[in-house]
C-alpha cells in the first residue's frame, strides 16, 4: 500500500545563523518517488535546507516531516534519510566494501546480511570488482558511485544529494546524469538534490524549487520554470533571457483570442521601441512591466524580408558564436538595445556574420511578463 504522506514536508521552516536568516519560513512538499531539485546561487539557503532534512541542522522554527513524522529535533543517525555528500565524504581508511557496509553495521545487522547487502549494493552501481580498493584508488565517477551505494544500501525513505555532480568533469557529468535518473527510476524513492547548475536541475528533476535569499521564488516542473518564470530572478537564473522593461502604452479590449484572461497590450521599451505582448488582466496604461524573452524564441531574418510575426525590430549582428548545433548571436537594435538570439544551425541558412543587417522578430506570446 502506498503511504499517504508525502516523502518530505516542510512547514514554515526558519533557520538563522547569527544575524543572517539562511532559510526564511519555507513551505515545501516533496511527493513520494519524486526527483526534486533545490536550485539557486550560493548562499540562497538550499544547502541549509537539505542539511535540515538530513538532521545536521535543526530549524529555529517550523516542522520537518519525513513520511509524515516530525523529525525537526531528531539527530541524523535516527532519521530514515541518507545523504550523498558534495565531495562524497568516503571514509579514506576503509575499503569500498567497508564504506558501503558502514550503515548496515551501525544498524547492527548480522554480518551475513551486511556482506550480502553490501555486495548487492556494489553490484547495483557496477563496482563489485573494486570492493577491496580504497577510495583514493578510485576515479571521481567511481567514488560517486560508492557514495550512492553507501547511502542506498540502507534503503532510506529519501535520498539527499548535495551538488552530486559538481566534482566531476563535464563529460562524466553528462553520463552520470543519465545514470542517476535511471537509478532513481529503479529504486523508486524520492531523491532531493541541491545544485547551483540550472542545466542539471532541468535535466534531472521532476520538479524544481528555485531559491533566493532563504526563500523559494518558484516551484514547478522544469518546463514551467523555464517557459513561465515567476520572476525576473528566475528568468535570469534559469537559462538565458532577454529582460525587457517597459511602460504599458495601451491595453486592447478583450476581443481577440488571447490565452486565458490575459490582455494584449502595447508596451514602450526604451532602446527597443513599441512591442506587443500578453499581460495579466487588470493591467493599466502607464504601469511598468518586465518581460522575459528567451533567445531561442527570437527569429532572425535578413533585412527586408516579408514576415508574419507580430514583433519586428531591425538590427545589426554584433557577434556570432557557432556552437555546432546552435548559433548564438548578439544583435544590436537600431535603438541601441542588445538582444541574445539563439538559432538552430542549418546548412541552408548559413551563419550570419557580424555587421550584417537583420530583422529580429518574435510572437506576442513569447515575451512573458515576470515579477520585477
Amino acid at each position, binding site marked *: 500500500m502506498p503511504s499517504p504522506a508525502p516523502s518530505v514536508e516542510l512547514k514554515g521552516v526558519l533557520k538563522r545563523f547569527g544575524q543572517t536568516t539562511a532559510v526564511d519560513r519555507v513551505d515545501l512538499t516533496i511527493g513520494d518517488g519524486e526527483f526534486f531539485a533545490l536550485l539557486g546561487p550560493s548562499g540562497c539557503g538550499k544547502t541549509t535546507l537539505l542539511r535540515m532534512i538530513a538532521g545536521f541542522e535543526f530549524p529555529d522554527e517550523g516542522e520537518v516531516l519525513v513520511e509524515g513524522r516530525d523529525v525537526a529535533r531528531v539527530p541524523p*543517525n535516527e532519521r530514515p534519510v541518507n*545523504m550523498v555528500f558534495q565531495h562524497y565524504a568516503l571514509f579514506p581508511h576503509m575499503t569500498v566494501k567497508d564504506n558501503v557496509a558502514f550503515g548496515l553495521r551501525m544498524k547492527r545487522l548480522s554480518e551475513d546480511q551486511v556482506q550480502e547487502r553490501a555486495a548487492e549494493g556494489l553490484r547495483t552501481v557496477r563496482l563489485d570488482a573494486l570492493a577491496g580498493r580504497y577510495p583514493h584508488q578510485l576515479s571521481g565517477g567511481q567514488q560517486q558511485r560508492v557514495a550512492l551505494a553507501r547511502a542506498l544500501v540502507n534503503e532510506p525513505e529519501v535520498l539527499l544529494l548535495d551538488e552530486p555532480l559538481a566534482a566531476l568533469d563535464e563529460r562524466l557529468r553528462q553520463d552520470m546524469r543519465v545514470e542517476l535518473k535511471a537509478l532513481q527510476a529503479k529504486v523508486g524513492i524520492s531523491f532531493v538534490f541541491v545544485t547551483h547548475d540550472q542545466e542539471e536541475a532541468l535535466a534531472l528533476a521532476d520538479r524544481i524549487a528555485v531559491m533566493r535569499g532563504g526563500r523559494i521564488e518558484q516551484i514547478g516542473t522544469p518546463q514551467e520554470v523555464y517557459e513561465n518564470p515567476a520572476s525576473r530572478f528566475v528568468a535570469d537564473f534559469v537559462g538565458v533571457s532577454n529582460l525587457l522593461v517597459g511602460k504599458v502604452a495601451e491595453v486592447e479590449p478583450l476581443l481577440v483570442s488571447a490565452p486565458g484572461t490575459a490582455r494584449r497590450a502595447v508596451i514602450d521599451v526604451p532602446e527597443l521601441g513599441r512591442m506587443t505582448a500578453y499581460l495579466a488582466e487588470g493591467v493599466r496604461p502607464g504601469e511598468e512591466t518586465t518581460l522575459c524573452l528567451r533567445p531561442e524564441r527570437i527569429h532572425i531574418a535578413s533585412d527586408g524580408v516579408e514576415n508574419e510575426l507580430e514583433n519586428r525590430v531591425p538590427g545589426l549582428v554584433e557577434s556570432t558564436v557557432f556552437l555546432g548545433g546552435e548559433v548564438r548571436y548578439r544583435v544590436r537594435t537600431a535603438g541601441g538595445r542588445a538582444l541574445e538570439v539563439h538559432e538552430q544551425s542549418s546548412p541552408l541558412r548559413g551563419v550570419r556574420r557580424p555587421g550584417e543587417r537583420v530583422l529580429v522578430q518574435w510572437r506576442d506570446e513569447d515575451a512573458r511578463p515576470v515579477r520585477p
Partner: protein
Amino acid sequence: MSRHRRLDWPALAWQSVFLGLPLAFIVAVSLAARGPYGGVEWRLSLAAYGRLFDPLYFEVFARSLALAALNTVVCAVLAYPLAYWIARAPKRRQGPLILLVLIPFWTNVLVRLYAWMFILGRSGPLNALLSALGLTGEPVDLLFTRGAVIVGLVYEHLPFMVLPLYATLEKLDWALVDAAQDLYATPAQAFRRVTLPLSRPGLTAGSILVFVWTLGDFVTPDILGGSKLVMAGNLIHQQYLVLRDWPFGSALSLALMAVVAGGLALSRRQEARA
C-alpha cells in the same frame, strides 16, 4: 629522479653536520677509555659497554621507560580534547588559541619548574587551598615526590602532544563525521570509527615526541623530584657533567637510543600490520 637526488643534497648535508658528526663523536668516545682525572683516553676499550649490564642501570632504564609511557598516555588523554576543541573552533580563533598553547615556551623551562616548586611547596597556594577547604590539617608534602615529577613532566610536554594532534584534526574533513552520523552512527561511534582512526598520525607523532623527550629529561626529576628519582636522563647527565665519565655516558646514551629506535621500529611494524 635525478632532480630528486639533487634536492636531497642540502638535507643530507644538514643531517651529516648536525646529526651525523655529533653521533659519530659519541660512538667514538663510547669506545674509548676514561682518563684517570676525567676526560678521554683515545685507546679502544669496551669497558663502558660492560658496565651497562649492571642491574642498577636496568632498573633506571625500566623506570624511565615506564614513566615516559605514563607521561605519554596522560598527555594524550589531556591533549586530545583540547586539540579537538581548538580544531573545531572558528578558523579565526584557532590561531590565538594555539598561541596560548605555545606561550609557556617563551619562558625558560627552569623558571617554569621553579614556579611549580612554589605551587607544590609546603607553604604554596595548593596546600593553602587544601587546608582552606578543610581537606588537610597539616601541609602535605607534594614537592619532591613521584607525583610532583609526573605533574611536571605532563605540564612540560603537553604542548608537544597538542600541536601534532591539532595539525591532523585541523585538516580532518568534518563531512566524514557528518557522513558517519548520517549512516546511523551515534556521536560516540562516529568518533571511534572515524575521527580517532583518522587522527592517528597526529597521535603517533605526538606520542613519539613526548616519549622520547621524557626519556632524555633530567631537569624535571632533578628539580621537582629533589634528585631522589634517577631517570635515564639524570644518569647520563651525571656521567658527563658530575662524574666526568664520558665513555660510560656515551655508552648509556647509545643504549637509550637503541631502546627508543627499537621501540619505534616495533610500533611501525605493528602500524603497518594494522
